[in-house]
Structures are given as structure tokens and as C-alpha cells.
């Protein structure tokens, strides 16, 4: 979707029509202030933006991180009529690259409501750490503190310390925590159904794989305080203790 400056309202309207259809959006020549307004507006409607694709631009710390290394995907099938005339900036590929990102939001709908409320305000202050493009695996040697958010759209995340409650890890691949996992962990966030979450001690607020999630209350007793792995098994998320 493309639109010039000053037509944010129209963009928003269109955006909501297409959100269910897992669209990527493109604001031609959008300035950071406009992007901020759009993100805020989306925030009030309960939609959280995980990343923004914008070439060669820098955004303020209050905005979601820039998405780097997105791959061109074939969303033609998902977006009928998309090529038909709206293209303005010639950055089609990048817009399409965003598609999986939004699909994740659509799928993790229930989960992202939980996260959207708790997480959105926190990420304002702590800049989410985004890994470098060339590394498939993100290794974090320090503990993850309350309020920190780790986004890794390229692969696995390995945390050598603990993950504090009130923090969040979102990874395209699997998540390995060699300390106590007390925060939220979302593996396979871009649709990887074979991603898993492993931790030495499970005190998590939320575990989610590919949008399927389980909250702390549901884990009560069964797997709390134990070394566990969480993975998708048929139609649902399974949390199993590791021997």
C-alpha cells in the first residue's frame, strides 16, 4: 500500500482492511514523525508493530526497531491485485518482505493482546536489541533484565543468563535459556512451526511457538520450576519437562 504524506487516515483505513490478509505496508516518503504517529495510532487499536522496514533511515528510540535482512517473499497470492497500480516508490520487494512480520501478528492475535498491553509500554524505554544481519544465532551472555525486549528475526536466541520477569524474547527460531526463564518467550515468531523453547528452569510468564501460547497459570504445577522444552505437537503447544 502506498500513499503520500498527509493521507495517514486513509492509510490506516486501508491498513485495517488488509490486516487480516497479512499485508505488508509501505508508506512512500514517510517521515519519522509520521511513522511515529502511525505506530501510536496502531497502538491504540491494540496492534503492536514488531519492526519497521525503512532503508537508510534512523528512527527514534521510541519506535520499533528497523527490520534488517528481510527476504523477498512471494505475497502475490496473498495480496490479490496488489501490483495493480498502487506502486509508487518501487520498493515492492521490501514491502513484501514485511509480510511475514504481519502474518505473525495476525496469528499470534491472542498472544499479542497479552503482549501488546504489557510489552508495548515497556519497549518504549528499553531499546529492543536487534541482532546483526549476518549472524544466524544471537548469543546473549548477560542476563536479560525486566523491561528489556530481544527481537531476533533471523534464527535462534541463546541466553546464558536468566530472563527476568517483565522481559521478552521474540525469535524466528528456537530460544535456549541456560538460566531461569521468568519472562515471555516467543519462538518461531515468523511462522517456524518446528521452533522450540528450552530452559533450565521454567518460571515463564508466557511461552509461545508460532503464535500458540501457554501462560504461567496454565503451566502451574506441571512444569514450573523444572527444566522444560516447549514445542508444537499437532494442534497445540506442549510443555514437557527435560529429564
Amino acid at each position: 500500500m502506498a500513499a503520500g504524506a498527509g493521507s495517514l487516515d486513509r492509510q490506516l483505513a486501508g491498513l485495517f482492511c488488509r490486516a487480516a490478509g497479512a499485508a505488508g505496508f509501505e508508506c512512500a516518503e514517510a517521515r519519522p514523525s509520521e511513522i511515529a504517529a502511525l505506530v501510536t495510532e496502531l497502538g491504540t487499536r491494540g496492534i503492536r508493530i514488531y519492526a519497521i522496514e525503512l532503508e537508510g533511515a534512523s528512527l527514534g528510540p521510541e519506535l520499533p526497531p528497523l527490520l534488517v535482512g528481510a527476504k523477498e517473499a512471494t505475497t502475490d497470492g496473498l495480496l490479490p491485485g496488489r501490483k495493480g497500480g498502487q506502486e509508487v516508490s518501487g520498493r515492492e520487494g521490501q514491502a513484501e518482505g514485511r509480510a511475514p512480520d504481519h502474518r505473525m501478528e495476525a496469528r499470534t492475535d491472542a498472544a499479542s493482546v497479552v503482549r501488546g498491553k504489557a510489552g508495548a509500554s515497556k519497549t518504549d524505554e528499553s531499546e529492543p536489541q536487534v541482532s546483526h544481519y549476518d549472524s544466524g544465532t544471537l548469543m546473549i551472555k548477560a542476563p536479560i533484565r525486566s523491561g528489556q525486549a530481544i527481537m531476533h528475526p533471523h534464527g535462534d536466541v541463546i541466553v546464558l543468563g536468566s530472563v527476568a520477569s517483565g522481559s521478552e524474547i521474540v525469535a524466528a527460531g528456537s530460544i535456549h535459556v541456560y538460566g531461569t526463564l521468568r519472562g515471555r518467550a516467543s519462538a518461531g515468531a515468523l511462522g517456524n512451526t518446528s521452533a522450540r523453547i528450552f530452559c533450565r528452569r521454567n518460571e515463564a510468564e508466557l511461552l509461545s511457538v508460532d503464535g500458540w501460547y501457554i501462560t504461567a497459570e496454565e503451566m502451574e504445577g506441571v512444569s514450573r520450576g523444572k527444566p522444560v522444552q516447549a514445542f508444537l505437537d499437532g494442534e497445540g503447544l506442549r510443555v514437557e519437562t527435560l529429564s
Partner: protein
Amino acid sequence: MGKVVVVTSGKGGVGKTTSTAALGAAVAKTGKKVALVDFDVGLRNLDLIMGAERRVVFDLVNVIQGTAKLSQALIRDKRVDTLFLLPASQTRDKDALTEEGVGEVIDKLRSVFDYVFCDSPAGIERGAQLAMRFADEAVIVTNPEVSSVRDSDRIIGLLDARTMRAEQGEQIAKHVLVTRYDAGRAARGEMLSIDDVLEILSVPLLGIIPESQDVLRASNLGSPVTLSEPLNSAAKAYIEAARRLEGEELPVIVPFERKGFLDRLLGRRAA
């Protein structure tokens, strides 16, 4: 060049100001030149605890705005002559602080003093972030309770992200000071144990200050506990913490509950 130490916590009421005064006084007694800077602009409590509230003429905001010289605003302590206080303004609010202004003041203090202790306001707002901005080391004050520990964890995250040192890719040295520790209640499981606190925060321990009426009394008298009653257990713990802050290696002993004869006879029935 002196060392700038920020005394901070996420939660209020854990004893930041008391600890700043006690640690600063303990370090100053060893002959080091120490400045205590109150960053709690708008509330201003450090001067009370130091017993200097009637000597405040100029304050941090005056210095930052250039209406007073640093030497005019610094108040020399009457008991220890290497101890100085830079009070906060009561009438202004945190917006009166600018990053450049704070940076300049801290730089000047750093060049004159061996230690600069910054008493941070509670929370994670601008005031707290400015207090920690130029620090080399941080003392995170926490009580052995979950809300305090979680807020401290949040603050440690900010210390690793928002300080000048962190932005230059360096690490800021961090220490946890556990205050208001009640051995009896910890033994009964009514408080987090020290091990739990350290496990959650994974930051080295600077000291454990036992809960004590003497601390409150000293604060109300306007004297840091390390000066007024240096022999009681809390003061001793602060003095040891100050020595660790100066780089000495001292083992931390977790206070235990002293049981009287009757307690032993009756067991723990009272609990």
C-alpha cells in the same frame, strides 16, 4: 579523577538516601574527599539526613543554571571535613535539570573529589536517568522483597543501556546493597533470602544492612548512622560495604537470628 557512584533503586522507600549518607560518611571518614549530590529535585531529603537543611542556600539547580558557583552550593559537613553535600532544590522539579548541565557539574566534582555519590530519585524517569547518566559505578539498593527486586532488575537494565559508559561500550560496575534485612523474617520465609535476591539480579553483593531502629533514629537526628552510632550492627555493615566499594575484599556475612534462651526453650512457636 574521582569516582562517580550513583545510589539507585527502582522502588521508593528502600533506603537510597540513608545509604548514600551512610556510605558517603563512611568513605569520608577514611580521609577521602567525598561529595554527596542529591538528585531528587523537588523532594530533597539528603540534606535532612545529613542535618544540613538549615544551611542550604544554593542548590544543584542554581549551579546548573549558573546562578550560583559550585563552591557556593557545596556544604561542608560539620563532623567530617572531607565530606560535602550538594543539595537538591525543593522548589523546582526534575525538568530544571539538563543533561549538559548535570554533565558539567559532575565533571567539576569529579576533578575535585575522590568520590561523588549521587542520590538518585526513585523510579525510571528522567531524574533517575540523569542521576545515573555520568556514573562510573552503581550501588543498587534493594529490600529483600519481590517488588523491590524486580524494580532493581529493571534499573540494572537501564544502567547497562542508558549510562554514558554503556553507550561508549564500557561496563558500569554494579553492586547490590540489600537493606532492611530481617534475619528472623528471612528464616521464616517471609522475606526473600539473600541467595534469591542475588540469583535474580546476578550482580555482586556489596553488603547486607540489617533492619534496625538505630538507622531511623539516626536519620531523624540528621546524622548518618555511620557517624552517629558507628558501633551498631547497621553502621558496621555500612562501613564494611564502604570498604568493599573502595576495592577491599571482605567476606559478606549473612546476618542470622540471635536466639535467646527462652526462644530456644520454646522453639519457634511464636512465629
